[in-house]
């Protein structure tokens, strides 16, 4: 490649060759000498006291090197992804879900470690358990965390409100009030690579290295060091290649601490790789929400007010569930004019596997609820769903502006999204066609297009980039961002090409290595392009300015007259120029050529981006994200009236991307998210039996979409470019945009097809069939 990649081009991913040839190394592919393998003994009971752990039989098995028991880690502090530190490395005295870690076995092979699991004898005293969020809030429900915890009250883990406007007046003025209950499912992110971590302890250097399949090397490093009682600088976390994450590889997990403890105890490298079953049963899933809605309307379809009560099930540990609820509430009324709202939610502990972050983070649940509620209202009022929405959408005269609950909107081209999606799929034609058992669903959503300041524990929403220019003008870019397939290295390469004119083969991107890259919160939400991308823009611009001073001196020109062309600083309008690499060499080596008073130096510039957003107030009012994006999605489904099976036959989505920095990556992020959203809509759900044991913890039983389930959407995925003024390159985050609308769009389409709303996810064939039979029965 001879020219620099620019923004707006679909530069092929720079890690394509490593990934295509299988040479990319994930944590399970690392092969250090003397490697030991760990496995976790997990509770078979949903709620019990742990009376004792007898490891003698396991230790007697040849090949078992050590067993870590609760008493070995009893002194270690609690930890959590967020502020409620309710997790322990091993369940100290109490287990709270089937799968809670009780002990760990470390052996010379995975097979021996596995064999030893059954030889660890744990004595339990079973306690009554509760598996449902609403049941957990009953006065006589067993209390899951009786220990004192920040703000926890019984099984109430967290309360969150979002209120604005005069709700009572709005309901009093309504022509029509509709009530409905919605329920969402416990879906799992199921990345193809399960969680894994490998630790090495250097006793002489007192330095721990942990390779982990993580999204946040730095905060994981901090929490791990604090848990182990080490200075944070004595712990190095490195993210190797990661095989998908989708939000659920955030923060510290027990297996990471156990790998570290095992390495410190044995003096040998120790790895834990979760099995697929453990991945399903013991890592976070999407929060189940039960949402009771009251919608106040005028007869012309105008939405006057939204009242809602939410019970959100976080499972046995809080993780980041409080934030999931908060964000879900903040986006509940969507891109619509809603003068009054009153949303009150509770996060409840239950004896189920913990829930928390999963791509979409509360928005899929909110969007499903709102959009299906709107279709129920539209049908009641005899309005076309698109027309009902058009009457309520935010309009261009509302922008820039602030919504009732305080979201500061700069650009939000929802009207354009709706028009373009409808045109792309010929919405009116679909409506006219009226094919039996075919349904059309049209939904809008609002999304945090920036990053969110809603991480209790930090009033910072940062990511960082350090750029180091070598004396030949090539560049190393280090960042806390943690790619798990999104194409971050490609994006940073393009930004460097745009600002400094460096070619892709001159750029090396280093990500998420705490000894080599600057501190930041890592990758989650849709934040990397906006946060670390903006930090990269800043750092590269500063570096360019530093180079330009010297270039101007070398060219005896005014700095303001210089332009960067094909890797050279050129005096505008002349052919006098100097290659960037020559300038970098002078800065490193040649004092005599530098401007007077300037000393030779290394060329290193760091910059951090703190997202311009705020922590909402006690009423949930505030602009929690740096900016907002929106989309319109139209799903077309066919329902088989005999079986209830729903098939997605067509799809259109117009998405506000701000500006597409790499259009192919934007499109493929949307495609992947939509596919996951279709899985969420139609079938994905962890199912527990009455003892809280996971029934479908395998790939055969937990059915994610296959190539046959996903429509080959391509040309109807439309990028709407609103050019965001908040971020210097004009783009918005799109990582989560795909997954949010599908459950809503498919629910609305199925309602259109069968005339009955399916208000609980997933929209399984059984539910659809039952709804059809009930409707036929009622018409007789």
């Amino acid at each position, binding site marked *: 490649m001879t020219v620099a990649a620019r923004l707006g081009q679909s530069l092929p991913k720079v890690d394509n060759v490593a*990934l295509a040839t299988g040479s990319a190394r994930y944590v399970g592919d690392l092969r250090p000498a003397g490697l030991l393998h760990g496995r976790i003994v997990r509770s078979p009971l949903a709620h019990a006291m742990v009376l004792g752990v007898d490891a003698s039989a396991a230790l007697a098995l040849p090949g078992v090197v050590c067993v870590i028991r609760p008493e070995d880690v009893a002194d270690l502090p609690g930890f959590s992804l967020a502020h409620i530190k309710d997790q322990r490395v091993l369940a100290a005295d109490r287990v709270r879900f089937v799968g809670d870690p009780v002990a760990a076995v470390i052996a010379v092979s995975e097979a021996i470690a596995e064999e030893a699991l059954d030889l660890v004898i744990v004595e339990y005293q079973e306690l009554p358990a509760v598996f449902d969020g609403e049941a957990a809030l009953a006065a006589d429900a067993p209390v899951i965390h009786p220990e004192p915890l920040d703000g926890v009250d019984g099984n109430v883990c967290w309360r969150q409100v979002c209120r604005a406007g005069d709700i009572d007046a709005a309901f009093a003025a309504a022509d029509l009030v509709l009530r409905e209950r919605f329920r969402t499912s416990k879906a799992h992110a199921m990345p193809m*690579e399960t969680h894994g971590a490998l630790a090495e302890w250097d006793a002489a250097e007192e330095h721990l290295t942990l390779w982990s399949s993580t999204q946040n090397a730095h905060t994981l490093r901090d929490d791990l060091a604090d848990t182990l009682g080490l200075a944070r600088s004595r712990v190095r976390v490195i993210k190797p290649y990661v095989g998908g994450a989708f939000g659920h590889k955030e923060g510290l997990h027990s297996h990471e601490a156990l790998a570290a403890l095992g390495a410190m105890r044995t003096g040998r490298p120790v790895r834990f790789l979760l*099995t*697929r079953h453990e991945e399903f049963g013991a890592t976070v899933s999407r929060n189940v929400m039960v949402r009771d809605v009251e919608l106040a309307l005028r007869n012309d379809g105008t939405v006057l007010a939204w009242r809602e009560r939410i019970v959100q099930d976080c499972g046995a540990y809080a993780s980041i569930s409080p934030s999931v609820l908060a964000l879900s509430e903040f986006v509940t009324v969507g891109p619509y004019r809603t003068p009054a709202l009153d949303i009150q939610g509770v996060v409840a502990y239950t004896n189920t596997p913990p829930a928390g972050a999963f791509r979409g983070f509360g928005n899929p649940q909110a969007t499903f609820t709102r959009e299906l509620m709107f279709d129920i209202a539209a049908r009641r009022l005899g309005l076309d769903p698109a027309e009902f929405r058009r009457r309520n959408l935010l309009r261009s005269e509302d922008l820039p502006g602030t919504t009732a609950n305080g979201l500061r909107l700069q650009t939000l081209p929802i009207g354009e999204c709706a028009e373009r999606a409808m045109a792309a799929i010929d919405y009116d034609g679909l409506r006219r066609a009226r094919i039996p058992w075919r349904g059309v669903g049209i939904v809008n959503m609002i999304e945090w297009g920036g990053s969110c300041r809603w991480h209790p524990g930090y009033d910072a929403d940062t990511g960082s980039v350090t750029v180091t220019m070598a004396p030949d003008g090539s560049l190393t870019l280090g960042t806390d961002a943690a790619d798990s*397939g999104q194409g971050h290295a490609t994006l940073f390469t393009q930004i460097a090409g745009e600002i400094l004119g460096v070619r892709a083969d001159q750029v090396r991107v280093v990500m998420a290595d705490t000894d080599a890259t600057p501190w930041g919160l890592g990758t989650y939400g849709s934040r990397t392009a906006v946060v670390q991308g903006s930090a990269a823009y800043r750092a590269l611009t500063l570096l360019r300015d530093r180079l330009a001073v010297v270039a101007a001196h070398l060219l005896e020109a005014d700095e303001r007259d210089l332009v960067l062309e094909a890797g050279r600083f050129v005096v505008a309008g002349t052919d006098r120029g100097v290659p960037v690499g020559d300038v970098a060499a002078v800065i490193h080596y040649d004092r005599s050529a530098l401007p007077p008073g300037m000393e030779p130096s290394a060329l290193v510039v760091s910059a951090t981006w703190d997202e311009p957003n705020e922590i909402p107030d006690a009423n949930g009012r505030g602009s929690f994200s740096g900016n907002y994006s929106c989309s319109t999605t139209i799903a077309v489904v066919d329902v088989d009236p005999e079986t209830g099976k729903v098939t997605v036959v067509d799809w259109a989505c117009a998405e506000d991307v701000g500006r597409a920095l790499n259009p192919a990556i934007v499109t493929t992020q949307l*495609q992947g998210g939509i596919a996951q959203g279709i899985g969420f809509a139609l079938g994905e759900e962890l199912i527990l039996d009455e003892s809280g044991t996971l029934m479908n913890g*395998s790939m*055969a039983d937990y059915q994610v979409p296959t*190539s046959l389930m996903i429509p080959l959407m391509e040309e109807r995925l439309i990028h709407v470019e609103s050019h965001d003024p908040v971020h210097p390159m004009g783009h918005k985050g799109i990582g989560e945009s795909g997954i949010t609308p599908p459950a809503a769009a498919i629910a609305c389409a199925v309602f259109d097809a069968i005339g009955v709303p399916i208000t609980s996810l997933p929209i399984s064939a059984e539910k659809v069939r039952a709804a059809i039979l009930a409707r036929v029965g009622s018409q007789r």
Partner: protein
Amino acid sequence: MRERRITLLVNGAPVTRTLAVESLLRDFIRDDLGLTGTKAACDDGMCGACAVHLDGAPVKSCLVLAVEADGRAITTIEGMGRPGALHPVQAAMAEAFAIQCGFCTPGMVMTIAAFLEDNPDPSTDQIREALVGNICRCTGYVRIVQAARAAAQAGRALRATRAGLASDPAGGKP
């Protein structure tokens, strides 16, 4: 633990090893041969990340015992293409943006390459059918199907210019 000595061709090179009779071919490839491009992503033969070629035919290597490969030839992703000389399917995957995290990619490449050998001019629906045993959680399959289509086209073009004399540039298969 019963052991057995096996000899096989791995990406064209002869290999002899002694191993436990119950070892899965997948684990033999990853742990004994150190060829970690072949991935393990499930316990029940459902994901396809472990796909390799056994005597040219695609198999899920977690559903085959290593001893079954005795006297036979296996090709893994490492035998398909190299930096600078990618297999046409690898090149098509890269070009189509069909690779996100890459964890499913080796299995996808092996499955698609074998499928195109037998079906040089497949329809889009045939490609979708062929991929049903390979799970990808990142891409939604759209671009993978596109890549397979592009690779089929490139393969047909190549065959046309070489008048049917083409040998597999990866050297993994006859």
